[in-house]
């Protein structure tokens, strides 16, 4: 409690400091700042300590200006404390060295060899072979990460506990995300469209890079390069059958955007930073207003530890921010501070997330 109060005072003091340094400062704001100072000794201390910090910074002789490379690979967005971010990165590095090594599958071993043979010896092998060899299932275990180059030059990166079936036909390239999440980098071939099916959706792309994720009944498509057409290919399954079936719908999603399909309904695309697309490839997941139930579904693809959400209402609470795949425990701990939930460790290793039984945000009457 003391620490968080102090942290709050530090943040307030920093905000005031920035404001006082600003160009257009009104007398009213100066007076407001003086009132804030006079409210408590903690406020005055927090402010003075920031000024002391400022002097220390000015005393540093070799200022650590970051390099261009360091800046380019930095994914921190300031939404969580630096220490929390650093812990996540550290766990990620350690873990990627041990378990979650990116596995480069050798270019479809047999299929690639056959394709090369087919090119060099067309007379012998004819055109019948590729169809057989180009139908493949790619899957990953919990916590695994796999990158596979397809014979058409496309690359599929598959997240943990996911399955993608591949069918590179003559007329089109059809892939299906059965479950989980994958990032597709599409090789250029204007004669053969590249289509990814995901539940009730088909995503059509030509020369682009995009991410498809299935969590619960939802499908999320995020584009890093070029554009895709998302089509609702199957009529939505309506639980009580009362809802009229809407006509098929397509939505274009361009680079730096994300589209969500919730219960088979297409949402409008929302902007998403390019570097946040498929950030899971670097061990980080970025969420914008994501239901807790989906986040937990994602995390269960990295950890064998079972996470149970007790009730529907809790599962519908939304989360924004970054989660590190290999620092899930830390994230679970911080969850109770961000949402009105209670996180309990059960004796069998399961983690239960439920509505907070006391001290809820809504006052009882």
């Amino acid at each position, binding site marked *: 409690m003391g620490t968080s109060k102090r942290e709050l005072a*530090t943040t307030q003091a920093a905000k005031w400091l*920035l404001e006082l340094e600003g160009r257009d400062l009104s007398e009213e704001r100066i007076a407001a700042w003086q009132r804030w100072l006079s409210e408590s000794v903690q406020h005055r201390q927090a402010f003075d300590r*920031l000024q002391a*910090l400022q*002097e220390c910074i000015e005393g*540093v002789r070799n200022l*650590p200006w970051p390099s261009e490379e360091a800046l380019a690979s*930095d994914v921190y*967005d300031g939404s969580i404390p630096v220490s929390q971010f*650093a812990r996540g990165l550290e766990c990620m590095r350690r873990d990627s060295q041990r378990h979650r090594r990116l596995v480069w599958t050798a270019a479809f071993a047999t299929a690639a060899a056959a394709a090369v043979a087919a090119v060099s010896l067309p007379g012998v092998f004819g055109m019948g072979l590729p169809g057989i060899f180009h139908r493949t299932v790619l899957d990953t275990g919990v916590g695994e990460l796999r990158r596979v180059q397809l014979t058409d030059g496309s690359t599929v990166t598959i997240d943990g506990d996911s399955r993608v079936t591949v069918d590179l036909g003559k007329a089109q390239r059809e892939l299906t995300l059965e479950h989980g999440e994958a990032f597709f980098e599409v090789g250029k071939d204007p004669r053969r469209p590249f289509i990814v099916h995901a539940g009730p959706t088909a995503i059509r792309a030509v020369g682009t890079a995009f991410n498809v994720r299935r969590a619960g009944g939802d499908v999320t498509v995020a584009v890093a390069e070029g554009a895709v057409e998302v089509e609702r290919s199957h009529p939505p399954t309506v639980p009580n059958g009362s809802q009229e079936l809407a006509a098929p719908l397509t939505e274009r999603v361009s680079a730096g955007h994300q589209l969500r399909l919730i219960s088979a309904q297409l949402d409008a695309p929302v902007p998403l930073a390019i570097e946040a697309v498929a950030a899971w490839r670097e061990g980080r997941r970025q969420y914008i207003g994501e239901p807790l139930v989906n986040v937990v579904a994602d995390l269960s693809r990295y950890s064998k530890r079972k996470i149970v959400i007790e009730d529907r209402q809790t599962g519908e609470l939304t989360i924004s921010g970054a989660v590190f795949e290999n620092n899930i425990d830390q994230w679970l701990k911080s969850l109770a501070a961000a949402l009105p939930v209670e996180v309990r460790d059960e004796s069998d290793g399961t983690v239960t997330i439920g509505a907070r039984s006391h001290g809820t945000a809504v006052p009882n009457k």
Partner: protein
Amino acid sequence: MTSPSGNAPQDETKAVEARDSSHARMIAELFREHNESLIRFLTARMRSRQEANEVAQEAYVRLLDLHQPGAVSFLRAFLFKTAANLAVDRMRSRGRRERLRESVLFEEFRDTPSPERAAVGTQGVEIVERLLHELPPKCRLAFLLNRVQGLDPGEIALQMGVSERTVRHYILQAFSHCRAGLDAAESEKVRGDRHG
């Protein structure tokens, strides 16, 4: 009426004296109540405690020179405004000196630490250097541009190609991280001093 008659100057002097003494009292009161925050304010804007003290003194002198002093609330506003203006003038003329200070030749002219910094101890700078290293690159860049180069969040946002909001987040997180790190180092030191 406009030209002073024979005994008028004497009357006027008396009036001025009377006014001056009540004016001086008001200023003394203002000083007692607001000097601390005036120094904080000026240190924030000038990034130097020593200069903040000098500018504050000058601002009080200007206040004493006021010919038509008003109520305390007016004086307070006037004090801060005058001080802010003086600070701006001084900052402008400082630009050249600042560049000189950056050169290695002038290392010995670095200013003396304030009481706060002395309290933090000489290790403060070293600890802060380490804490700055710990900041993620973009956050560190935004923080240094703001704290060392004196760019405001809007300018930094333009330079870095991110939103001003993100820049503010970077700066606030960096402040929190460094402050918490310094606090931790200090409480460790206190514990160490007590036991060893």
